[in-house]
């Protein structure tokens, strides 16, 4: 394992039997799992290159049990790793050898559907898609739609601030969550926000969202729901050059059009997807855009025409417009299956997740081609073009000596390039363990210390999901120390009034 996790606490490991018994006293029956074979399913999340069996798995089914488990662990100095459905692509739910894995899988109930206030109150183990399904009969849906929406839990979505194809227009998780019940590492249960548009005081909901399971364990969530748009249509546009496709994206946005989704695939991704799902993708283009417009029919028809005109002006070589739901779904089928499609052409792949300013797309793709040469590994690119979120899929074979290391080095260079071009390390997958050691590429020690001080406000012992997000762990007392800058006791010599 290339990533160093915090050293295991041997004293804790030595007390394993006692800890298991104590957890069983809190969560009876099958809610505590300690056999090696049954724990195997929990040893990894969606970042399967990393595996580590936990010390013990606990699956509470009430908030009170979560509270008691955390309180017990806090009192005993035992680390805890929370887990939803385990679909994280950044290793956010990777267990620790000396840690309790706290699974929220039993929190599967939707507690309230409130159409008048346009919210759903749900437990965290409910899948993203199940929320939309529960309100579909009234024409509503929950907007953020990560590709794993069939499996990923809403609790995990909040922890990771998940995005999806439609977040350019409808926002990420953070823009669609109103409140939560959260249990702190101390066992304290707090309610933040509610059914109103805004919370009072500091926006704690905002900072809990995307905190990757380091600040607390969420046991209930209130999400906004929206009415489904009347209709949606898509264009599938091919370009002989990536630059032209990038220009087309910029001009669409520049014309004031915010599509429901705007995706780009490069040639290797197009070929892999076409071979897998036969969506009718053109094979002789360098870049393919799938642009979806949604809203009232009259608006969609008008915008389709405008986008088509822009695409033609940018030199598109092919342009198909969906005329039926079946056709629209076919356009998307290849894009949605891009990851498994790439899985068919390569024994293994690493999925990266950087964001760049839209305008930097051509130079980012050029850099990726150079790096592909350098590392002698293939790379297929799919790209949420509308918001600059790049997903290079690095192809490698784990059974070949040294390939995984090369693939990881390739990925790290791509993310460094994203930062160099004015972007960020991760757009929607999270830092987890995967990008943890790259954080200094984007943040100074002062920046990271401020973030870690915030962590201390929620979890002063640093027991909740340690080893994720931050490359270096500091004690809270050390972070809180005020360095008085000597010799500067007077206000500086600047204009006064």
């Amino acid at each position, binding site marked *: 394992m290339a990533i160093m996790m915090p050293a295991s606490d041997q004293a804790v490991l030595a007390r394993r039997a006692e800890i298991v018994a104590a957890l069983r006293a809190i969560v009876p029956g099958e809610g505590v799992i300690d056999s090696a074979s049954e724990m195997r399913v929990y040893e990894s999340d969606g970042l399967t290159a990393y595996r580590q069996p936990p010390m013990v798995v606990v699956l509470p089914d009430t908030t009170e049990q979560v509270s008691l488990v955390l309180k017990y662990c806090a009192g005993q100095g035992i680390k805890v790793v929370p887990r939803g459905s385990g679909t994280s692509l950044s290793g956010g739910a990777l267990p620790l050898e000396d840690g309790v894995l706290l699974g929220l899988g039993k929190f599967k109930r939707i507690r309230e559907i409130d159409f*008048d*206030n346009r919210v759903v109150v749900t437990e965290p183990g409910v899948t993203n898609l199940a929320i939309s399904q529960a309100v579909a009969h009234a024409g509503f849906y929950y907007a953020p739609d990560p590709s794993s929406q069939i499996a990923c839990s809403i609790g995990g979505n909040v922890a*990771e601030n998940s995005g999806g194809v439609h977040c*350019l227009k409808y*926002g*990420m998780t*953070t*823009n669609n969550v109103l409140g939560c019940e959260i249990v*702190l590492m101390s066992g*304290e*249960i707090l*309610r933040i926000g*509610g*059914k*109103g*548009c*805004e919370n*009072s*005081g*500091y926006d704690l*909901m*905002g*900072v809990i969202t995307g905190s990757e399971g380091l600040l607390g364990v969420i046991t209930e969530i209130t999400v906004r729901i929206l*009415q*489904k748009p009347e209709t949606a249509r898509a264009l599938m546009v091919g370009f002989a050059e990536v630059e032209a496709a990038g220009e087309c994206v910029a001009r669409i946005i*520049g014309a*004031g059009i*915010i599509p429901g989704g705007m995706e780009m695939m490069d040639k290797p991704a197009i070929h892999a997807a076409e071979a897998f799902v036969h969506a009718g993708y053109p094979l002789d283009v360098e870049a393919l855009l799938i642009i979806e417009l949604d809203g*009232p029919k*009259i*608006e969609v028809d008008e915008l389709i025409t405008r986008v088509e005109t822009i695409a033609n002006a940018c030199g598109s070589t092919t342009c198909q417009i969906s005329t039926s739901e079946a056709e629209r779904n076919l356009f998307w089928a290849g894009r949605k299956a891009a990851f498994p499609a790439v899985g068919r052409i390569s024994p293994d792949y690493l999925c990266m997740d950087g*964001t*760049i300013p*839209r*305008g930097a797309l051509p130079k980012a793709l050029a850099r990726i081609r150079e790096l592909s040469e350098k590392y002698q590994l293939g790379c297929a690119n799919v790209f*949420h073009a509308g*918001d*600059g979120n790049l997903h290079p899929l690095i192809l490698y074979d784990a059974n070949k000596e040294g390939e995984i290391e090369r693939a990881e080095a390739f990925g790290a260079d791509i993310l460094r390039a994203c930062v160099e071009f*004015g972007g960020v390390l*991760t*757009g929607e*997958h999270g*830092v987890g363990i995967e990008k943890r050691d790259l954080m200094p590429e*984007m943040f100074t020690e*002062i*920046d990271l210390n*401020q*973030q870690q001080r*915030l962590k*201390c406000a929620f979890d002063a012992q640093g027991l909740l999901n340690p080893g994720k997000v931050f490359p270096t762990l500091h004690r809270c007392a050390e972070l*809180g120390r005020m*360095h008085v800058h000597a010799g*500067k*006791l007077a*206000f*500086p010599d*600047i*204009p*006064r*009034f």
Partner: protein
Amino acid sequence: MDTLKVRDAKDVEEVVRAAIANEQPLEIIGHGSKRSIGHAMATNAVLDVSALNAVTSYEPNELIVTLQAGAPLADVLSLIDAKNQQFAFEPMNTAPLLGAPALGTIGGMIAAGLAGPRRIRAGGARDHLLGAHAVSGFGDSFKTGGKVVKNVTGYDLCKLLAGSWGTLSVMTEVTLKVMPKPEAERTLLLHGLDDATANKAMTAALGSPFDVSGAAHLPKSAFRTRTDGLGDIAGQGEALTMLRLEGIAASAAHRAGSLRELLAPFGTATLVEDVASAAAWATVRDVLPFAASGALGAWPVWRIVCPPASGAALGTQLARETGGEVIYDWGGGLIWAALPPNGDAHASAVRERANATGGHATLIRAAEDVRRGVDVFHPQAPGVAALSERVRASFDPKIILNRGRLTRGAAA
């Protein structure tokens, strides 16, 4: 009292460091347009960021603008308007309500986080702040977020800065999302509805697929003050329920037609377009019926946020109980209440009503002696208050920045 007009982030660091060393708390101001909101502060020097007023970069095609925190909001709005873009959260102009002279700065806009009618569709200031450079109460410059719309790298400290009223850090530079302005707007007006019926009409509209971007209700009594923005609309002096549709012209007109049919049980809706519609929404956004210069100018004003469907019950009861006036925005989820002056601005009635719905209330306008005896910001449950205090301490352990603004008695 010293006012220190900082020229760059380095100055801010030095002023904060000196303040730490001298244990001398600072009041942070831009134009001072919202200075009267909050409690009197225990500060003995002013850090003025209004000279940090540059536009760092504006990239319309990337939908972002990066600004120094002291940039005047009015100038920035003109800048992005020239490219047909806007801040989609419709920042409120607090000047008429507070009787303050200026629109304020970008930093103030974010620190107050007061979003307008489109909040229900587009989110608030917190949803549009993508990145920030700021100086913490440790005297250190740090950055959070970035210059792209999609970013989950590290904790989202931007969310904390938005709405922090200058208590956590001094923002020096911010990156904000901008959005295209809609080509057209149409507003349907329902006339003469009581609050409860209006709330039902707004709920029906917001639960429709017609993408309503504003839903407000002005009860009849709200027209006690002449409100120019409403023009002829307010002519009859009857209650008005407003529902806004925006987008390309054909779409806005089409949806207005569909929504009018849906709302037929609530009466025959009339329609205003574009300029007249925009003026009407500015009236709601800036709460002009309660303007400082108007008939209710001396009345304290509360801003109450609650679950939207509970709005009318809360507002009606509060108005009846206190003899006050209310107007509703956000489909009922935001109530502006102007209440007859008394010693505590009717705080216990307001808070009791707000708590009963799971909402919260902020005393936006009141004389200083009233604010001394009332919690301006909604008291939080003890656990949340304690966590918030630890969060504040993680940014500013010596309480150097805007000491006492958020908490009654803390200045002592």
